[in-house]
């Protein structure tokens, strides 16, 4: 190997390597873009079906609409029955300030504002602690609750929600997320009455 390579050769090899890399990545990006988009949409669809289960004869749009609650964007699928009556909705909200940042969850609500079910879409909470929010024992207390009549805080803060053992921060975020979704539903309902 020569001790001193010419600058020209050095630059040329690096440029060539970078160019080949860029071409390869562009190609991989192109062939994976569609499957990735489909995977994301399939998960959202699955979640909507779960959180709106039990509602009969409803229709909801293919893509979600958007609004804002507490300066945080909420995406939602409005479920309408015959003649466009509001039958409920699936709300995608950001649960604020979890143990590892915000996480995304979906809440399904029926026409009278009662929670059908919740579904966590994307989270980075601690496995074994925070991910207790995926367990039935935690989720079931939310079902059948509505915005009014419940203090939407964990018991430690003077509310009505039983927190997950050793994961109060996650429980707080989850509870705040559910509350946002319920507020979003109330707003939808009001708009419908106008």
């Amino acid at each position, binding site marked *: 190997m020569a001790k001193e390579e010419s600058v020209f050769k050095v630059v040329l090899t690096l440029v060539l*390597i970078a160019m080949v890399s860029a071409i390869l990545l562009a190609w*991989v990006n192109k062939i*994976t873009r569609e*499957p990735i988009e489909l*995977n994301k949409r399939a998960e959202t669809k699955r979640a909507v079906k779960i959180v709106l289960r039990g509602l009969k004869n409803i229709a909801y749009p293919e893509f979600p609409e958007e609004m804002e609650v507490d300066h945080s964007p909420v995406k939602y699928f409005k479920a309408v029955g015959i003649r466009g009556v509001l039958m409920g909705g699936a709300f995608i909200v950001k649960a604020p300030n979890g143990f590892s940042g915000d996480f995304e969850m979906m809440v399904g609500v029926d026409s009278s504002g009662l929670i059908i079910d919740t579904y966590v879409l994307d989270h980075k909470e601690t496995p074994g602690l925070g991910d207790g929010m995926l367990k039935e*024992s935690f989720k079931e207390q939310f079902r059948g609750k509505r915005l009014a009549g419940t203090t939407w805080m964990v018991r430690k803060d003077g509310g009505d929600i039983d927190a997950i053992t050793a994961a109060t921060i996650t429980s707080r975020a989850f509870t705040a997320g559910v509350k946002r979704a319920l507020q979003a539903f109330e707003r939808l309902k009001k708009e419908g009455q106008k």
Partner: protein
Amino acid sequence: MNYADKFKKTFFTENPVTGLLLGLCPTLAVTSSAENGLGMGLATTFVLLMSNLVISLLRNIIPNRVRIPAYIVIIATFVTVVDLGLKATLYDLHKTLGLFIPLIVVNCIILGRAEAFASKNTVWHSIVDGIANGLGFTFALFILGAIREILGSGAILGFRFWPEEYRTILLFVLAPGAFITLGFMLVGMNKISKMLEGK
């Protein structure tokens, strides 16, 4: 090259994790379950195999002075390929590993093998070296993940040892558990290595 010896070395005596103590960041961070360990290990194996292959192909072309930047570009390219590929095929696994996949770029095992082996050996030997080291890494991550998952969650790969309501040793799925388990694992692996060498 004796393949059986090579694999025995990279699994035990010169295992990247338990023998050389390389790549500890992903090792400690993702091994809260056996599945995560396995996924991370295999993703790294793919990157290691491909980067070793390309770097040994180009070993006489890349100028000595810029070899490190060149290696990093090559490694980063394959990491991005893995990232996008996993997202497109194993979406759920990608969701749990997501944060750590881009960090494979700075996993010193990969740059280490490029610098110490692939840049000096033939393509075929570099491929074998990449697979052997990758699988050794996967092996260590899987064992670590399995121990932590059994003790911390009472389950492994979806199989439960005791019901969900039972208390488990939560410490093991948290960060300190990773260090403690790794410590005990090093003791065990050193014993095994000594036995293998003593023969």
